[in-house]
């Protein structure tokens, strides 16, 4: 089975802190994604990466950055956490297109609270 592991299920951070959310996948997938999930807003794409050191902005990149130094690991960075970044963060991975994108596999999520 594909496994996407997020380093923490719950995090509490203070306003202004630099926060790192880590995600590791074990299936050698090229694509990795970070979403945030908020009630009534569904999943919104923050960033995605299609290869090591490659990234593209999603729909809501402001206040976030990402790092992908190794294929299996994709980190989301909140440069200076703010209370409006309190949310559930979901990491996903998917195989590179071979003409077809098959599906995305999700981690269990990290619930981040910024106080």
């Amino acid at each position, binding site marked *: 089975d594909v496994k996407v592991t997020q380093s923490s299920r719950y995090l509490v951070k203070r306003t202004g802190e630099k926060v790192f959310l880590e995600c590791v996948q074990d299936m050698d997938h090229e*694509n990795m*994604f970070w*979403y945030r999930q908020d009630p*009534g*807003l*569904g*999943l*919104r*794409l923050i960033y*995605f990466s*299609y290869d090591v050191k490659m990234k*593209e902005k*999603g*729909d809501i990149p402001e206040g976030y950055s990402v790092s992908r130094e190794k294929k299996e690991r994709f980190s989301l960075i909140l440069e200076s956490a703010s209370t409006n970044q309190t949310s559930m963060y*979901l990491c*996903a991975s*998917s195989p*590179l*297109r071979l003409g*077809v*994108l*098959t*599906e*995305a596999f*999700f*981690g*269990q*999520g990290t619930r981040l609270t910024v106080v």
Partner: protein
Amino acid sequence: AQSVTQLDSQVPVFEEAPVELRCNYSSSVSVYLFWYVQYPNQGLQLLLKYLSGSTLVKGINGFEAEFNKSQTSFHLRKPSVHISDTAEYFCAVSESGDDKIIFGKGTRLHILP
């Protein structure tokens, strides 16, 4: 750019009754379509997907969906729901040649006894 609209934020339905969860998408190119389910306090799990071929797609737990290109829809159906189907359901789209997957806002399915 692609987008997804889930027309109902919540759908109540009696146990053993049929249900349809609606999804419309917007795209100017070929698309791949997905339905995911999120049970309470769990991650997202793939229910079914349309990549090509037959427009009627069958998934897990008795769900199916039909791709309608002319109406740009991908509605999810189940002929008889069970209390265990209580969850939030997300429709998602990816455009051919683009590996982004864009999700709708979700539909909460409430099963009434």
